[in-house]
């Protein structure tokens, strides 16, 4: 019995850990798309954030500084996306694809410069801390490797991700600025008539999404693992994008979808560790098959913000 409870704790814990990078990035997706700007460049922003986070954490010995810089790196790519989409009426999906090439290109270019020609960083000296161990001491509050320890003794980024879900929910639905973001995403012309600066809101939203995606990348490179490598992100940004659509453009929905993907990963790792006789690749496939089935059967038609992808031109052209 105790063994089963421990196993469940292990699965829940790994689920939380692997969901975290997705939640950060997915929240970023919610913010930008609610303002009416598609951001398919989340993958590139996450990739770049993963590199910047690990590189800064390596050289500064401070994982937190790395974490914040990763966000700023993502926001920089967000700025490029915003300039293209908001100011210069770029096709948003095309610009997003460009961001993906720029993000991976810049990340690897800098990696080769700062890490002796390698496409991965060296192992960082200090990972993001585990708050429970940090506050109460190793194994003091919960018994080491017990259920509570396995579930709750996780990286600070895990706690932060869930906290940010609440923050984004609150800001989006309960504050003036959130209402404005929604108004701009649903009907920019009307918002403009009411004196809301569509351009400014969209710049803010796109850059925030970049910041969040950068954090998501760093949550991978300096918490889940302890270095950046060129295959670390490979597609997680796209999964986060899908999670956001799956979650119907809502922060809480996106979080649940990310937990589904993280959960499948948790089960996969658990069964792999137990030597379960089902091939791991078939297990790994499950969440993606499940997502399609759920979208087809239960969720049905997903409705994006009304003005999504539409170019807004104040001059009325």
């Amino acid at each position: 019995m105790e063994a089963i409870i421990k196993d469940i704790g292990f699965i829940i814990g790994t689920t939380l850990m692997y969901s975290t990078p997705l939640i950060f990035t997915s929240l970023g997706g919610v913010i930008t798309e609610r303002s009416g700007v598609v951001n398919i460049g989340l993958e590139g922003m996450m990739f770049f954030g993963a590199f910047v986070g690990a590189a800064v954490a390596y050289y500064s010995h401070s994982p937190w500084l790395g974490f914040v810089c990763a966000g700023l790196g993502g926001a920089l790519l967000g700025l490029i996306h915003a300039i293209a989409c908001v100011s210069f009426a770029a096709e948003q999906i095309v610009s997003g694809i460009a961001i993906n090439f720029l993000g991976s290109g810049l990340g690897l270019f800098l990696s080769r410069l700062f890490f002796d020609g390698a496409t991965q960083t060296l192992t960082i000296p200090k990972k993001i801390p585990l708050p429970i161990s940090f506050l109460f001491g190793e194994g003091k509050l919960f018994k080491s490797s017990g259920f509570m320890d396995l579930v709750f003794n996780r990286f600070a980024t895990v706690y932060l991700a869930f906290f940010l879900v609440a923050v984004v929910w609150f800001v989006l639905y309960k504050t003036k600025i959130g209402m404005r973001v929604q108004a701009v995403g649903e009907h920019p012309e009307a918002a403009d008539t009411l004196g809301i600066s569509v351009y400014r809101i969209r710049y803010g939203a796109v850059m925030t999404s970049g910041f969040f995606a950068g954090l998501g990348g760093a949550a991978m490179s300096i918490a889940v693992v302890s270095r950046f490598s060129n295959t670390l992100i490979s597609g997680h940004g796209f999964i986060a994008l899908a999670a956001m659509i799956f979650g119907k453009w809502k922060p809480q929905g996106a979080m649940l979808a990310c937990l589904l993907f993280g959960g499948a990963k948790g089960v996969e790792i658990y069964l792999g560790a137990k030597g379960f006789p089902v091939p791991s690749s078939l297990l790994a496939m499950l969440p993606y098959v499940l997502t399609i089935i759920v979208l087809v059967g239960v969720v049905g038609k997903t409705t994006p913000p009304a003005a999504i992808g539409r170019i807004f031109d104040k001059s009325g052209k």
Partner: protein
Amino acid sequence: MNLNGEALKSKFLNGSLGLTLISIALGFLLGAIILLVAGFNPLEAYWVILKGIFSRSKYVSYVIIYATPLIITGLSVAFAMRTGLFNIGAEGQYIIGAIMAAAAGYFFKLPLILHVTVAVGLAIIAAAVWGGLAGYIKARFGVHEVISTIMLNWVALYLSNFVVTLKAFGSQGTGKTYAIQSTARINLLSDWKISEAGIEFIRSHKILGDVLKTPINIGFVFAILLAVLVWYILNKTTLGYELRAVGFNPHAAEAGGINVKKSMVISMLFSGGLAGAAGAFQVLGVSHRIAKLAAMEGYGFDGIAVSLIGNNTGAGSVFAGLLFGALKYGGSKIQDAMQAPTEVINIMIGTIILFVAMPKLIRLILTILERRAKNGWKQS
């Protein structure tokens, strides 16, 4: 005469070709600036790349080999794009094509031309179904093709990784399948190359021998034929007209009596089939087997770039695919030659796409430059 020049210029700038060429130039410019900031001589780097593409027939052959799958996945993305669908799933459809080609190439025992035809045909059918599935669930259930194809990419990747572990198909523990039969290969003169006469020929003929040292294959010829086919279907047939009408304005197309839902499925069937062909030619011509994938290989994603730079047309995809292939192959040379990161190529590709997306910006820059030039001329 002057008027004529003006008209030509405005045609060049308002047409997509001119904007694309300017975007490419800006991509090279930004690449140079980044190399310069990082402490490398950009002229030297570009010279190394240029030499790495053209200085030996072997290099040119490799560029063509690199470009072949990119051209075809580019055509795949372009085809869907013209119907207003964003096929981010070319990656997965490519993988499905590769699996089918590797399986048909290994398990079937058939004569030469028939074997290739069957392998490519099955790969195209399987990948068309894979792509068509995304089109169908969009038409029937309203699920956006971007999310469904992202999911299908991962399913394809893990399916491929599952298949390579099957006992009948792959040598255990190596993470690779057995090589396809020689009858299924599309390489040029592969048997003759290792015969005595062939070895002698390669030694004595510098240029052609050099080419024969590479896995040169007829995939490129098929890529060109497919580009012509895509152009023909889209521009010269009723079906193509309907598909483009849906892409241009689905509501108007619907009102005009075109079945929009059916068009979506058909478009994704074609798009998937093309990506599958890319995977098939890569297996039959270059890799001869499939192996466990640690991550997405990127042929489908690169195809998106090719399609965008090529303005979503058949001919455009061929040129953009060759450009991308050349930069990818030639760009890899600056790493060894001068320790300059080869990823500057990705940055350049990203920049080109970014500028392609912003015709408004390019026109603005040109107007400013023109005004400056005129004013300067008046003052002097």
